[in-house]
């Protein structure tokens, strides 16, 4: 998905939010001062709660992403929208599903950046590819960033890495911090950084590395 498509995709989401406001999902008053104040006893409650959502985004005639969400909370003025329990998410690339994802929670900020938390799972071809606790998706750069530790799983091997980036414009997962890769019980690889091809399922390490094989 290119930059234009990404912006278009999130513009769709923004329009959807605006439309929901317009058609009365929100309170009738349009006074922003009133909108920021919740009625007594309802502090912390969302302005609007939508249950059972199926969303998809299209750009240039191609599906960009889709999500099935248990509920969405639309905030009072100045707060992020919150998606609860993303049961199924798909990112499309070259007119086909590229990566799947699910998470317990996601928040969308004013610049349409999504922050996924609570048991984030990214999958490829129906199999779990990555698990982590926090992941952000910036439509402007088309990069998924995992600042903490993530565990990448593929073909019986696992890679534990920190500070991981998935560039949705290409097929690679990048890490710049130390990694520990394990293949089965007897192969362990430590290195400084890694590039993993999601489509070819190949790991490439540039720089010093150490492989230990237990016979």
């Amino acid at each position: 998905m290119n930059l234009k498509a990404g912006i278009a995709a999130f513009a769709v989401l923004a329009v959807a939010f605006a439309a929901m406001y317009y058609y009365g999902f929100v309170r009738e008053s349009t006074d922003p001062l009133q909108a920021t104040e919740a009625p007594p006893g309802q502090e912390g409650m969302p302005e609007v709660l939508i249950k059972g959502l199926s969303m998809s985004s299209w750009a240039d005639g191609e599906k960009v992403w889709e999500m099935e969400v248990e509920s969405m909370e639309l905030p009072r003025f100045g707060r992020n929208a919150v998606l609860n329990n993303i049961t199924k998410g798909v990112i499309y690339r070259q007119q086909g599903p590229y990566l799947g994802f699910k998470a317990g929670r996601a928040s969308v900020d004013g610049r349409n950046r999504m922050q996924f938390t609570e048991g984030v799972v990214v999958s490829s071809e129906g199999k779990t590819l990555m698990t982590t606790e926090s992941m952000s998706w910036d439509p402007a750069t088309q990069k998924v960033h995992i600042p903490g530790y993530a565990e990448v799983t593929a073909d019986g091997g696992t890679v534990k890495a920190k500070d991981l980036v998935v560039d949705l414009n290409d097929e690679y997962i990048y890490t710049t911090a130390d990694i520990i890769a394990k293949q089965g019980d007897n192969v362990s690889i430590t290195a400084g950084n890694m590039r993993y091809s999601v489509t070819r399922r190949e790991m490439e390490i540039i720089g010093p590395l150490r492989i230990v094989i237990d016979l």
Partner: protein
Amino acid sequence: MILAAILVLVVASGALAAKQVIITATKKLNYQGQKGDAMVEGNVKIEYGTTFIYAEKLLFNSDTKIAKIDTGVRIVQDDIVITANVMTADFKTEKMTVTGNVKLELTEELAEKDAAGKPLKDVIVLLTQRMEIDINTNDFTATGGVTITKDKQKAQAAEARYIDAESKMTLTKGVVITTVDGDTVKSDSAIIYTDKETFEAEGEKIEINFTV
């Protein structure tokens, strides 16, 4: 009783100690998880017990435990240094094959000492085209023509077999040994002891040429 128990534990821990292959490199690794193939590049070093293998590029399969080098290799094992064009090492069977311009240098420490009191050393150089080595015992078999030199002595044969524990090298097929004085001995086979100055020629026909 306690001593016996400790002894059993020590022996058991030694027997259970798993062998490891440790590979380090400075440049690059391309790992195909499905095939188990790892292509490693840049100052590659393989460490396996007392054996160290050096190369610029290595293909290692994590399933078969077979390492292949075809860009030149240097193998150091105790007092033996081997260089060759190509190497295949099977770490499951502990067998290694080197081919192409194979050169083996075996350094033997002698009982004699120099003026400074340091033991004198003999260097035996073996040139061949193909060598199969037992990584565990250091024994090897060389084929495809073998030339062995030690000081001014020279031995040539079609094949050679070395048993490290006995410091014994057996040469077979068309053996020609040239002594320091230029005398030659031709035989079907010969045994050279790398820690001694003597050799034994064997066969139905032994031809000795020497200058009087």
